[in-house]
């Protein structure tokens, strides 16, 4: 008996000795993994948290995550076209007329403006830079628009200006993320994803959220600006190209006929269906639906993305040239997509970062060229939406991610070869038009130099709150449960900008 006890004691000592650091780490891995798995199994997985505001019919949404849903409240608009000028256009050359700034041209910037401020590139004491454009008032509303945008000045009565927008990010990437997702850090869903999640999409043969880019580059923040963050990835923006195949690999490979494709898909779906009967996982149904939608999209997408069939007067209006990647083509596409029931169309035009380091980046030349590229198309977009009655139900938003300084940029303390302005967070101009927006309104007043807003300032969250309101949401109640708490597009901020509502 005694021997047996001894034997056990030895065994347990041996076992302890054999328990090495590696075993410990191994244990840790499996147990931490288990911890991570627990919330996935029982916690906030998307299916259970969708209770939010949408009151959705779960079974229908399970089958088709893009199934349309009624908005919680009566929305004024049902789609959004967001024109984002990546790089941030200068409000001081376009909409915010500051005659006082002209008087200070080339003088040292007053210390009071610089105190406690940080700029992306300006160091020391920069010179002030007067407005480089000629301003005049337009339309019945008397909106100030510069000669950089001669066509837009004719439609200025259609829009509401936000002249004292402010943000808190002075670098492009974070500022673009903030403007599009409500947070300067990665991981949040974009405005378009929120709206698509909340409302689904009407046309079942097209994506709900389409992204079009122009200007040669995509935004600095990368594709996260139209990402779905913690929302299911089906709500992210689908980037389409205005040149070549609208969606890569949309066409069947040569030798693959439409019928053969159909057979392949129905075979896959048959297998999936049997899988669903065995396991009952709704994700499988969603997958079946995705295959079918992709098959339908193959027909509808090339059709809607083809601008060749538009009449000549429409091409003249927009200044479109089929076959090239341009902001004009994208504007026309945006109208076509919205007409076909697409929920959100997001346009990014790159090339607005006018620091004055080269010709293209100069306020008096490069900026004018950029303005010419967008002036006619965006004015045409407003007119075209208007004449079709689509402007009643569509929101059009225009703006950059921040503004530009009233001072001339002086990176490395040197005078630049061209006239340019640095990034500026305290004041910039955006405009909104369409469903539920008060035409010809102007909200927000900046100081004499256009340096910061003095009254009616509006934040990025305020803008988001207002856009969601017009789409039929209460931005404080439109939430999604993630990591144990509800998240909002507007985080804990945002107030409705009532003065620009019709």
């Amino acid at each position, binding site marked *: 008996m005694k021997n047996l006890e001894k034997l056990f004691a030895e065994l347990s000592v041996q076992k302890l000795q054999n328990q090495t650091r590696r075993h410990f780490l191994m244990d840790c891995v499996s147990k931490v993994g288990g911890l991570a798995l627990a919330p996935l199994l029982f916690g906030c997985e998307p299916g259970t948290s969708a209770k939010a505001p949408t009151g959705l019919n779960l079974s229908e949404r399970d089958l088709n995550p893009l199934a349309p*849903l009624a908005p*919680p409240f009566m929305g004024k608009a049902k789609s959004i076209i967001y024109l984002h000028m990546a790089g941030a256009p200068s409000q001081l050359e376009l909409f915010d007329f500051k005659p006082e700034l002209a008087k200070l041209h080339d003088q040292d910037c007053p210390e009071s403006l610089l105190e406690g401020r940080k700029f992306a590139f300006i160091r020391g004491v920069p010179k002030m830079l007067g407005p480089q454009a000629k301003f005049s008032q337009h339309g019945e509303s008397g909106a100030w628009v510069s000669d950089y945008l*001669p066509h837009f000045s004719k439609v200025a009565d259609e829009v509401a200006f936000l002249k004292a927008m402010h943000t808190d990010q002075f670098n492009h990437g974070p500022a673009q993320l903030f403007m599009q997702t409500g947070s300067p850090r990665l991981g949040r869903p974009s405005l378009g994803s929120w709206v698509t999640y909340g409302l689904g999409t009407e046309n079942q043969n097209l994506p709900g959220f389409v992204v079009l880019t122009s200007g040669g580059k995509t935004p600095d923040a990368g594709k996260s600006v139209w990402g779905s963050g913690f929302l299911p990835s089906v709500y992210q923006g689908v980037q389409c190209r205005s040149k070549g195949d609208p969606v890569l690999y949309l066409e069947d490979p040569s030798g693959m006929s439409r019928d053969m494709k159909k057979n392949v898909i129905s075979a896959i779906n048959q297998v999936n269906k049997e899988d669903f009967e065995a396991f009952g996982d709704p994700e499988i149904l969603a997958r079946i639906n995705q295959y079918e939608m992709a098959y339908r999209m193959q027909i509808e997408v090339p059709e809607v993305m083809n601008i060749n069939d538009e009449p000549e007067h429409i091409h003249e209006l927009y*200044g479109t040239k089929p076959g090239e990647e341009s902001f004009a083509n994208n504007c026309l596409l945006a109208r076509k997509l919205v007409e076909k029931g697409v929920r959100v169309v997001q346009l990014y035009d790159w090339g607005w970062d006018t620091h004055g380091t080269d010709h293209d980046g100069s306020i008096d030349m490069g900026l004018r060229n950029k303005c010419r590229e967008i002036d006619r198309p965006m004015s045409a977009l407003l007119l075209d939406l208007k004449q079709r*009655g689509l402007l009643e139900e569509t929101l059009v938003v225009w703006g950059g991610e921040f503004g530009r300084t009233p001072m001339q940029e002086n990176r490395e303390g040197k005078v630049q070869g061209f006239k340019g302005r640095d990034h500026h967070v305290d004041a910039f101009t955006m405009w909104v038009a369409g469903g539920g927006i008060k035409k010809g309104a102007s909200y927000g007043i900046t100081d004499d130099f256009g340096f910061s807003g003095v009254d009616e300032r509006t934040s990025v969250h305020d803008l988001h709150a207002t856009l969601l309101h017009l789409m039929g949401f209460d931005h404080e109640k439109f939430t999604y449960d993630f990591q144990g708490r509800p998240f909002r597009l507007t985080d804990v901020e945002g107030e409705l900008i009532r003065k620009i509502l019709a």
Partner: protein
Amino acid sequence: MDFIVPLFGRFHPILVHLPIGFLLFGVLMVFLSKEKDSGHSQSIQLAFFVGSVSAVLASISGFLQYHYEGFSWETVQFHLALGALTTVTGFYLTWDFRKTVNWTSFRWKSFSLLVLLLFTGHLGGNITHGEEYLTELLPDGLRRLLGDSTDAEQGLTLPESGWEDLKYYENVVQPILNSNCKSCHNPRNKKGELDLSTLEGLKKGGENGVVFHANDAEKSELFSRLVLPSDDDDHMPPKEKRQPQKEEIELIKLWLETGASFEGTLGEARPAVKLLDPFFERLEVPFYPQTELAEVSADSIAALKKMGFFVEPVHLGSALLKVSCLNFPDFEDADLSKLSSLGGNLAYLDLNDTQISGEILSQITAFPNLTVLKLNSTLIEGKDLATLQQSPNLKHLYLNGTQINPEDLAALESLPALEKVYAYDTPLSGNPAVKKFRFSLETGGYSLPPIPSDTIVY
């Protein structure tokens, strides 16, 4: 030891449940017994006796609570009287039970005790929870039937222009107090002996004296208690009640800081417009007709979706529906019968790019609440528009890309609600023969003529 007596008063809400339980149990036993001597007599007697004794305790504590807690006589009089009557009836039944011979009449007496008990309890509940405690959850129709007014205490509302001339106290402060404080601080229910429903009451203050001091908001309990942390016992309104908006608190503060005048105007206090903005009255005319309709069943909506229609309520909870044939391009005249069951529920119908003919318009009258009708790029003809005249709620009519002629539009003039007609890309576009109509007509055909700067590259 002064505290003992008021403390006993505060036990009233607990003690009242004893007589309710015991007496109810007694009455139950009486009704379960077919005759007096059915073996329950001792339990019945005990229940009535203990119930009556506890009713005495409840009555005494109730009276003390009334005396010490600032309830007005008008509020409690009936509750108190009925409570006393219940107690007496309880003792009477205890005594009567022993000698009664007519069991049926005793049962009737017990029943009247039950009625007394219920009424007393209900009146007591009204005092604690407010008279609308039970009715406020009922649907509006039912509430009106019960003679209840359905609009709650009107909060603060201001006109968007001319607010400067309003009296700050009368038109701003008092309405804020009415919607946030009055339910517990009124002449009938004076918590803390404070009445905030009138100017006199406010001036008089409560058990701790005056509640406001001109030019010193921090010292004024009228303000300072509002901004205490919500878990502070002195925080007002109590944390389980609806809390005032932050602008309301700011407006109270501003009133105190600018002299707490009972005569001054709002304009003199120079409030930031942001503070007033949430209270501006905005007359919003609802876009869709206001009707009370039964919702279309989920099954019929699902069936329509299966056929290829897009069908959704105009917003969650609305009975009015939006229907679109966006995913149903083969829709033709005969298919309209599939929608006919929707009737008044159909408010928005999009038939763009479908195969319909003008004849379909005569059937549109089956949808009296139709507000938006889209007929873009269809084969409808101008002469068919005349049949639309029976659509009393039609506001927006889309006729883009159709063969509509100027003379056809006159038929629409008699549509009472019609606001906008879109007729871009029709014979109307750019046609000088189009005259002015009562509704706004959009014929489009915009252009942006080329200008020299279009071609200048810098």
